[in-house]
Each structure stands twice: as C-alpha cells, then as structure tokens.
C-alpha cells in the first residue's frame, strides 16, 4: 500500500515539475529594458476573464514573464462585465493598479473622476498603437487609456445546418431558423441587433426608438431558441443552434472546434469596441502600473496576447507581423482586420451618430433605466 502511494506521489511530483518546465521563455533584450528597482512590490491587475495569455497549452504566461523580469508580484483577478468592474471600484474597499474596461465605461470612469492620468512619456511602446484607435471619443486627448484589444460584433452560422443567410441582422428574425437562432442575453447588445436592423443609432437618447427596438425584439422572440452569452460557444460548436451574433474574436476560437461555422458582418452595420488599459484612481503602485502597461505593449508580448485571445490588436507591430498574418490565415485575418471601406463604403466619413459601425457611448441614467426596463418587459413578454 505504502509503495503504491509512494509511486503515485513520485508520478505526481514529476508531472508538476514537468508541466512547470514545459514553458521556458528567455529574452535578453527585454531583460535589460526592465529594471528590477521595484522588485518585491505588488501590482493588482483586474481584467476580463480569458483575456491574457496565461501559459496554458504552451503559450506565454504574460504575468509570470513580467514577474520574472521585474520582480514585481502580479495579483491577477478577473471580472465578467464592465458593470461588475464599475460597481467594485465604486463601492470602494478594493485596490487595483491596472484595469481593462471598454470604451463607454472608460468615458463614465473619466467623467466620475475614477481614473488616473497615464504618463505616456514613460510608456515608450505607446508609439506602436495604430492611429485609428488614438483619440477616440471617450478619451479624446488619450490621457487615460491605452488600447488593448479591439473588435466588432458579427453573425456566426453553421454552414452544415443552414445555407448562407443574407448578410443582415434580419437573419435573427427569419422564420426559416425558428428555434435555431440565438441572441445576446444582455440589454445593450440585445438591443443593438434590433437598432441596427431598424437603422437607429446605438446611442440614441430618443426613448421612442428604444421602444420600437423593443417591439422588434418582442416580435422576434418566438423565432429565437434562447438568449445566451458565453453559452453560445457550446450551442454553436455542437450544432445545437445554427445562427447567432457574437464577437469576431470568439468566432475564431469556435471555428477551431467546429469547422462548419462561418461568419459575416451584417450590412446594416454593427458595434465596434475598444478595451483599453487604464489606471484607476485607487492605484497604489503607479510606477509598476506604467511598467506593466509598457510591458503589455512590447511587440512579442502583444503578439502572444493577440494569438491567445483571438481578438484584433490595435498594435501595429502585431498587425503588420507577417508571422502573425500567416498564423491566422487569410480568412481569420480578414475577419479580424476587415477592409472597412469595402465592407461599409463611405461610413467612416459620416458624422459619428450616423455611422453604421458605432461605438457604445455611456448613456444618461434616464435612458439607461428606460432600456433596462424595456429589456425586462421583453423577458416578461
């Protein structure tokens, strides 16, 4: 008995050591760029789940790499929605040095004085960020945020189950796909599909337009199979559902599991988002936070993250990296980095609230409550 136990123990120990040695990453160049002056201090990072290369399946463990280079201990925690993150910060009692919220939430955080300015002169790698994502509406002077990931929502469908639909949000209302289609299970994204179909702006403050979008969603409810968030992975991968909207980056991950899945951007336009690295005003270790931001923008770190997460990167050294292009393949590359002019001709020249491709803006409290109530009515309908 004891011998059995011992051999089991040895196997276990071997496994653990082997696994931890599986990945070894050495880069002398980075080594001299990062000082160890702050070694021994701690850095609290608050990020979306599954949103950093974490060392699984032989990829780079970004946080561990940073710890090795600088000696700073990274405490990494995750959130599942901008709103959760916001209420955590708002309620106080937490201390984070790095957060990664989305565009409209950054706008709200800035207006409520909850972000610290980032000293860009000390983030030398900021030069790599594509001009397209600099000076966006929520942070026009680019003082509070450094873009981390970008993406757009599109429709994923299973080509083995259904023929290629018209490239329209109307596909989610099509009786042909009764009990086979999915939609978002959160108000903002759910309404987006109806708003775009009806030709409204996503950021309209006209309550009538929200009402009409709600009526549209109610009409489509009998066609839908269900409202989902991350459950969409399983449902589309297994063929349980045939069509549903989600983020382009997630489509790439799903396609690896089920080759029959295809993707398109609806002609009526869609939502575009930027998730950016910010420093909240509760920061304790500002210097380490700057170091961390700069580290995330190191070309190879950004590349490892882009490959792991699957979302589009705003980092020019990643976008223009031929190896990355090859890694993704032509189809995926064109989905992540679409030719916007070909997809939505003339769209970028229009004033923002008339564009087909829109960012979410932080809406006034009254509008927010209005659509949250409408969403409840939709669910109670």
């Amino acid at each position: 008995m004891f011998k059995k136990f011992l051999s089991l123990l040895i196997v276990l120990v071997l496994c653990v050591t082997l696994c931890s040695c599986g990945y070894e990453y050495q880069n002398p160049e980075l080594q001299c760029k990062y000082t160890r002056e702050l070694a021994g201090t701690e850095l609290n990072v608050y990020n979306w789940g599954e949103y950093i290369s974490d060392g699984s399946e032989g990829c780079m463990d970004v946080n561990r790499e940073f710890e090795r280079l600088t000696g700073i201990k990274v405490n990494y925690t995750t959130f599942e929605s901008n709103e959760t993150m916001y209420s955590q910060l708002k309620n106080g009692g937490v201390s984070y040095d790095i957060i990664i919220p989305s565009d409209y939430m950054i706008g709200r955080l800035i207006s409520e004085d909850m972000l610290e300015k980032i000293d860009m002169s000390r983030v030398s790698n900021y030069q790599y960020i594509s001009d397209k994502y600099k000076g966006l509406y929520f942070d026009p002077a680019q003082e509070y945020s450094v873009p981390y990931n970008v993406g757009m929502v599109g429709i994923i469908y299973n080509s083995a189950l259904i023929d290629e639909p018209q490239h329209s949000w109307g596909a989610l209302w099509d009786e042909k796909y009764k009990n086979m289609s999915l939609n978002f299970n959160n108000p903002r994204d759910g309404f987006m599909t109806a708003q775009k179909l009806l030709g409204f702006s996503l950021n309209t403050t006209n309550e009538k337009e929200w009402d009409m979008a709600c009526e549209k969603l109610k009409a489509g409810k009998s066609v839908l199979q269900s409202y989902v968030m991350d459950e969409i992975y399983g449902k589309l991968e297994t063929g349980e559902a045939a069509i549903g909207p989600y983020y382009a980056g997630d489509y790439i991950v799903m396609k690896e599991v089920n080759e029959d899945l295809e993707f398109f951007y609806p002609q009526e336009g869609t939502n575009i988002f930027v998730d950016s690295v910010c420093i909240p005003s509760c920061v304790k270790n500002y210097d380490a936070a700057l170091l961390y931001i700069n580290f995330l923008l190191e070309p190879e770190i950004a590349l490892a993250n882009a490959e792991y997460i699957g979302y589009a990167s705003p980092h020019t050294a990643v976008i223009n990296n031929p190896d990355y292009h090859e890694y993704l393949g032509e189809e995926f590359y064109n989905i992540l980095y679409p030719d916007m002019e070909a997809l939505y001709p003339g769209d970028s020249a229009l004033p923002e609230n008339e564009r087909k491709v829109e960012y979410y803006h932080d809406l006034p409290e009254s509008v927010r409550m209005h659509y949250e109530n409408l969403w409840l009515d939709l669910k109670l309908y």
Partner: protein
Amino acid sequence: MNKKSFGSRIVAAPYMVWAAIFIVVPLLIMAYFAFTDGSGNFTVDNFMQIARFKKAFALSIIYAVIATIITLLLAYPMAYYMTKLKISSQRMVMMLIMLPMWMNFLIRTYSWITILANTGLINKFLGLFGIGPLQLINTPGAVILGMVYDFIPYMILPIYTAMSKIDNSLLEAASDLGSNSWSRIRRVIMPLSLPGVISGITMVFVPSISTFYISQKLGGNKDMLIGDAIEYLFNTGPQYYNVASTLSLILMVMILVCTLIMNRFGDDEEVVV
C-alpha cells in the same frame, strides 16, 4: 419544562445570534426596501408595478403546482415501496436517493442540457432509429422536469419517514377487522402518512415557485419565472433593489400563506385520526 433554564439559553445563544443576523435582519432589510423608493422615502409605488410581473407569477405558480403534483405521484408509491424492503435495502435505496443531492444542483441542472438538447443524448439515440430530433429542451416540460428531478428527494424522505413510523400492529389490527390491502392503505397508511406528505409538498413547492436557474438553463431563457425576474433586477443595479424586494416580499407572503393552509389541513386530519 416551561421555564427555560439558564444553561439551555446559553447553549442556544450562538444559533439565536446567527438567526438574528442572517434571517431576521435580512427580512427587515427586504421589507424596508419593499416599502421605500430609491432615496429611502416611504412609498407603495413598488406594489403598483406588480401588474407587469403577472405572467411571471402565473408561470411560476403553474409550474410549481405541476412539479409538486408529479413529484408527489412519483414519490408516494416509492416511499411506500421502500418501507416494504429489508432494513439493509432501505438504507441502500435511501443512499441512492440522497446521492444526487451531494452534487451541486447547478451541475445537476446543467447535465440535463446534455441529455435533452437537440444534439443531446436522447435525440442522438432516437436518431439511430431515424426518429426526431424531438424538441425537448427549451420547453415548459423541460423546466418542470428539472424541478421534479432536483426536488424529488425532499418529497420522498419525509413521506418515507412518516410511513416507517407507522406501527405494524395498526396494520395487523386493520386486517383483523376485515380490511383488505387496498383499504389498509387508504384508511390507515394514507391518513397516518399525511404529515409527511404535507411537509413534502411544502418542501417541493417552495423551492419550485422561487426557482430561477432551472428555467434559464432548460427553458431557453425566454420566459421569466418570478425568481428570474428578481435575479435580473438585483443584478441590473441598485435602482431596482426596491422593486425586487417587493417581488420577494410578495413571493414570501404567498409561500407563507400556502404553508399555513397546508399546515391547517394537516392538523385537521390529525384530529380526525
């Protein structure tokens, strides 16, 4: 007996404190939120909004009633059958009934998705014979099935306990007085097991009517039960805490009334016996 000794008070003190902090205080907070608006002023406006939730309330009640009836119909014969087994077999069967309860109920519910899905086990099996796929998941039936599966142990156990307490000599006396086996069940076992049935019904009906996760996972997330509505409101933000508390309060009062009625029913029967 009437006067509680100092010692027994000391012994009960930890739980009394626990109950006060985690049962009484939350109830008071809920009541406070239910009768105030966002800024803390007294209002009954929250109750005016209830009409919006009538479908959710109705669905919850209907599903819970159906689930309770099915559970009772399945559990009663099962409990009777158990009491007829050898003691060792009774323990074994009891174990088997309890076993799923050691698993988290979220996981148990999730596993039904794999079974009922269009590409799930049942439909794959039927597919072998060229049948289907049948629409099993995302139907009211799936939600009720989930409730029955999750809560049936709470029905079997109290009925079984009540039945196994019935003195065998009562049954023998009934036979001596000319009862056949059906009339023994009807006139001796049924009345004597009624307290178990009453507590079983309460223990299944209460979680069924307030459930929220099962309907989201097995019902396709399209029709809200009252539990789902409360969950959505609390998750959406502090500005909805008041309405959500009002809904919770109404649900609680409904459950309380049902329980009182059931208990009254049970007491009367006991007097008859």
